[in-house]
């Protein structure tokens, strides 16, 4: 693999891992709101 391909892969994977992990972790750890309406 070329350096450019590795860079593109690693940067994209890092972004995807970061946001997938960040948002899913927040989903797991944030309790649902009490929404008595």
């Amino acid at each position, binding site marked *: 693999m070329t350096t450019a391909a590795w860079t*593109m892969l690693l940067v994209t994977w890092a972004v995807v891992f970061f946001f*997938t992990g960040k*948002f899913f972790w927040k989903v797991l750890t944030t309790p649902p709101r009490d929404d008595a309406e």
Partner: protein
Amino acid sequence: MAKGESWGSRVGLVLAMAGNAVGLGNFLRFPAQAAQNGGGAFLIPYLISFLLMGIPLLWVEWAIGRHGGQFGHHSAPGMFDRLGKKRWLKYLGVFGLFTNLAVAAYYCYIESWTLAYVWHSLIGTFKETPATEFFPRYLGQHEDSFFALPPEAFFWFILTLALNTFILSRGLAKGIEIAAKIGMPLLLIFGAVLAIRGLGLEPGADPGVTQSPLEGLNFVWNPDLSGLRNPNTWLAAAGQIFFTLSVGMGSIHCYASYVRSKQDIALNAASAGWMNEFVEVVLGGSLLIPIATAYLGLAAVQEATAGGSGFGLGFLTLPMLFNNWGWFAPIAGAMWFGLLFFAGITSSLAMGQPVMAFLEDEYRVPRNRSAILFGAATFILGFWCVWLYPGGSFDEFDFWTGTFSLVVLALAESFVFAYIFGMDRGWEEITRGADIKVPEIFRFVIKYITPGFILVVFVGALLNPVGGDWPGAFSSLVSGQGWPFDPGSVIGRVLHTGGEYEWFDETGRGTRVLVQDLTRILLLVVFLLCTFLVWKAWQNKKRSQA
């Protein structure tokens, strides 16, 4: 509707939403699209489209869904009706019924192939019979006939439909949510195992391997900035984002309608969307192309993915390549088709729920009966796909319902949300109860950029010229020779360009054009029937209010 029906847990909702988005396209279409559109050149427009069109559209659909749910509407017609005072708004929602019903018909058929392939991988069929021989026989394809009623394919199709109907009849929390909680983790595990095994293949060390799989990975990831100047790469990338997120179908709206009005949608939507990207970009990009490249070489892979579909590689080539993996071959085959099956079923369930919700909400049909009605309707339409598969009915279903219809609904909803519902109310709806801070810039993006983006995709699909040669097409138009529509463009398809328009050949046999036209008539009838059902439901409502 079943009063009080709701999601059992927030994780269940997000996994169900992600399962809705993750489909066979993540593993078969994405790598093929990337391969056909210059590899790394494709990924930059793809990621930009995700941020400017995908994520905003997810928020719009979740917002429309949760808003509609507050009024007891869990399907698109009722939800759109509540977005404004115009009476025609509810008819936009017909697309949200029609698309789900018609896509489910052919999608369940593909899903049933994956189930059959799991079985055949486990019993070692592909060790004795090449998949290239097995598959046409399985589908009942003969050179001299457009019709087929293959018994085995039919059996697996019925089994798949029955499974879908059963899960749907159990409801949201006990059916769809459990399926997502089982299916999504298994899909991730299967994908990770296959990717690690596939990327570890070495020429010389592993039998049959001629190239490093990293060559395939290099092809997908090597950046080529010239792609940014090519409108066709942008159209392909935006199109892929569209299909991979399952936007424009009405299924996201439906799932979101069971979220309570003050509960978060911003974080849930972002989480489900990014999870889909993880499966597509990380897993989808690491399986088909690298493994196939290792055994066949890059040139053969590019040839096999011509047309932007990886179905040939996925169903014909990969089962053979797994034979080189010794004792692991049946397990690898079962894992590959198993992950495709889980990707498929979590999506097909999402197609069933909106149709059922419409029957439950607007016609007071109990859940079990609405599940059976959905199963029966899917069977009838699916039968057409099975029966006329060799004649091309399947492609017609895929194009008009799984491609064109989605873009129409998404285009309409992006304008309705921003300009009829109003951006102020829309923004309030998206951010109410949000567990993340939605960047203010998305207010501008949703109002101007996303509708414009979809409009460009729509016009591109409508007018795509032969070979994607836009400058050549404009020259042709200016010089009075007319617009050279590609046979795959919407208008090209309607006009049957690129072939002779004859229903019967000289021997009196029906042609593919006949099958295509009959399929279009069938789809039009289904659309009109959905429209009638919406009209009738509102008539009933009016009468009961009087």
